[in-house]
């Protein structure tokens, strides 16, 4: 049965390749209705990412490029860059610098092709009153602050995104292994395998997983054409997505979009296995902490204060 399904899907992909060959070079080829139907059919029976062999994956990426190029009217590059050797990514955020401007949020939305309507944001910046002694449990946060100017007097800000837990509860609960941890520590979701049960959202202690409640929409002119299969390719209605440390960038040695967007340099990112990296320097020289340590999820996302504590007013 499974071989049969696989075989059918494959023959469709091969047909696709043949068609792609005919129109080689053209970035945005017009798809016929029949082709689109065949795509949908193939997607229905597509296998889990980890069960795809190199050829399957190549075909699927080619198909994805074609489909997205057509839909967004620009040349799209789709890839599935694997984890690098001796690499585990880590992140550190300097709370004494963060001014709550949300530039990271918007940069993330654009970089990762997140839906604008309905609005999906992978980074949530929480605002707290200074002097609030409950903030580490994140209890009295305000995510919808909207002052004329940030930072506001008497407030401080804690941006939260996927903490890339080393013991991720989200992965444990997924009934179909649609989400897992890669060798470089990034927790990813196969958007074509997730069934949308949202068990992982109930299990994640950091509100890091977002569901696509409706059909995602991304403006053509803002579409980021450099996409990774496990990262920033457009998601579908009815599935879960999450921050991947910009897998499409980090696996090519670049900083994540949020690191680059932060105007005050509060965000630090790098390879935890590299003793000379900035992230290692911070872990070794700053008093870092992690959110909800008592749950022992073992995040690879650290917080610290480079100046004062920032909490008392």
């Amino acid at each position, binding site marked *: 049965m499974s071989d049969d399904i696989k075989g059918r899907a494959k023959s469709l992909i091969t047909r696709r390749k043949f068609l792609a060959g005919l129109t080689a070079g053209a970035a945005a080829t017009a798809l016929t209705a029949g082709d689109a139907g065949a795509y949908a059919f193939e997607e229905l029976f597509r296998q889990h990412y980890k069960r795809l062999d190199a050829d399957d994956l190549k075909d699927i990426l080619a198909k994805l490029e074609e489909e997205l190029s057509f839909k967004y009217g620009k040349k799209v590059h789709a890839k599935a860059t694997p984890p690098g050797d001796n690499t585990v990514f880590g992140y550190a955020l300097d709370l004494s610098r963060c001014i709550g401007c949300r530039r990271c949020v918007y940069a993330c939305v654009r970089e990762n092709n997140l839906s604008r309507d309905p609005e999906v944001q992978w980074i949530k910046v929480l605002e707290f009153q200074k002097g609030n002694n409950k903030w580490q449990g994140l209890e*009295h946060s305000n995510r919808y602050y909207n002052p004329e100017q940030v930072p506001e007097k008497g407030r401080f800000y804690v941006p939260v995104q996927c903490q890339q837990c080393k013991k991720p509860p989200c992965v444990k609960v997924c009934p179909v292994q649609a989400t897992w941890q890669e060798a470089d520590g990034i927790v990813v979701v196969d958007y074509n395998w997730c069934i949308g049960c949202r068990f992982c959202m109930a299990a994640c202690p950091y509100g890091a997983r977002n569901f*696509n409640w409706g059909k995602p929409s991304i403006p053509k002119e803002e579409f980021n054409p450099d996409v990774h299969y496990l990262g920033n390719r457009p998601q579908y209605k009815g*599935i879960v997505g999450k921050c991947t440390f910009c897998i499409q960038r980090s696996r090519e040695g670049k900083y994540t979009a949020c690191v680059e967007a932060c105007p005050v340099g509060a965000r630090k990112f790098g390879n935890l296995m590299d003793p000379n990296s900035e992230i290692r320097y911070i872990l070794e020289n700053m008093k870092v902490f992690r959110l909800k340590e008592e749950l022992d999820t073992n995040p690879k996302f650290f917080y610290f204060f480079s100046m004062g504590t920032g909490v008392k007013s």
Partner: protein
Amino acid sequence: MVIDAINGIVRTVVSGSKEYKVWMGFLSLLALVGIAFVFRQVDQGLIATNMRDDVSWGWYIANFTFLVGVAAAAVVLVIPYYIYKFEPIGEIVLIGEIMAVAAVSMCLMFIVLDMGSPERFWHLIPMIGIFNFPQSILTWDVVVLNMYLVLNLTLVVYALSKTYAGKSYKTKLIMPLIFFSVPAAISIHTVTAFLYLGAPARPFWNTAVLAPRFIASAFCSGPAFMLIIFQIIRKTTKLNITDAALHKVAEIVTWCMAVNLFLLGSEVFKEVYSATAHIEPFNYLWHGLRGHDQLVPWIWTALIVNSIAFLILIVPSIRKNFFMLNIACVFIFIGVYIEKGMGLIFPGFIPSTLGAIYDYMPNAMELWISLGVWAIGLLIFTVGAKICIAIKTGEIGHADPSAHH
């Protein structure tokens, strides 16, 4: 023989009193309305519901949880009859099993309705898809629910086909299955409780008392529902259900309600006396949090009706008055239903893990779709019960109605 049987069954289902036809028509109408709304949900996605990232499970999962309890409650009949040989329950134990089949079917419908991508259901099928067993408790739930469904179907079909043929069925032959159905019933509710209590991210659920409390409340609500149905059945059909049987079931409900209230008490004590930061969802539920208090009237209603029901039930002379018993049953049904939805699933998400308060309540579409599922479930139950009674009373087939199987 088989053709005969099918003929008889079809005749039984399509013919009946005027009340029966009105009831079936009413249920079919509700089911159709529900299905019409399902099309809308499939088209727009779950955004058509009131669920959002902060409260990512809602009314569907609440109904699912409640119905797992109703399904599990069949053992309340099985244990006294088969294991303790309490004969008067013999006439109704099959009806309880049919109820279990209907309830599990509704559970599965609610699960599928709650899925964001139901067309990918095959991902869950072992071998073809990837079944994350034993890590994911959800896969355990899939296993035990389906097993329980098959088990009850087997028992019902076996007993009825034997009765139809005019033979007595050998309890010995199916005894292992019957014994097995007891832990199976307990397991469906335990595993469902584990879905929630296994999430340390949600302090409101992360309490070991959740599983026993689930079972206690399930053994109240399911039988309470059945007590009312049994009275309707004995008024409208020839099936002979004795008072003794009903009183026995009512007695079991009484003690289960006592355990339920006791466990609630220990939960309240633990939260209030230790008064840690984890008390926030509890506060949200029982007296409001930072000005948000929409669940408060619901949970107090549940507590009050459950307590009144318990007071009615605890005194045997009052409990044996059918009017009072029925009040208690309706109260228990309402009380436990509220406890599972407004009292358990919603506050588990409020405040969210990041401290946000999103006041979730189902919208009209969610309510209509859920009503539709209930209607389909009741259709399954009504048809099943009608066939069962027709066979048992000898209306169709060759049963000797005067003898117990």
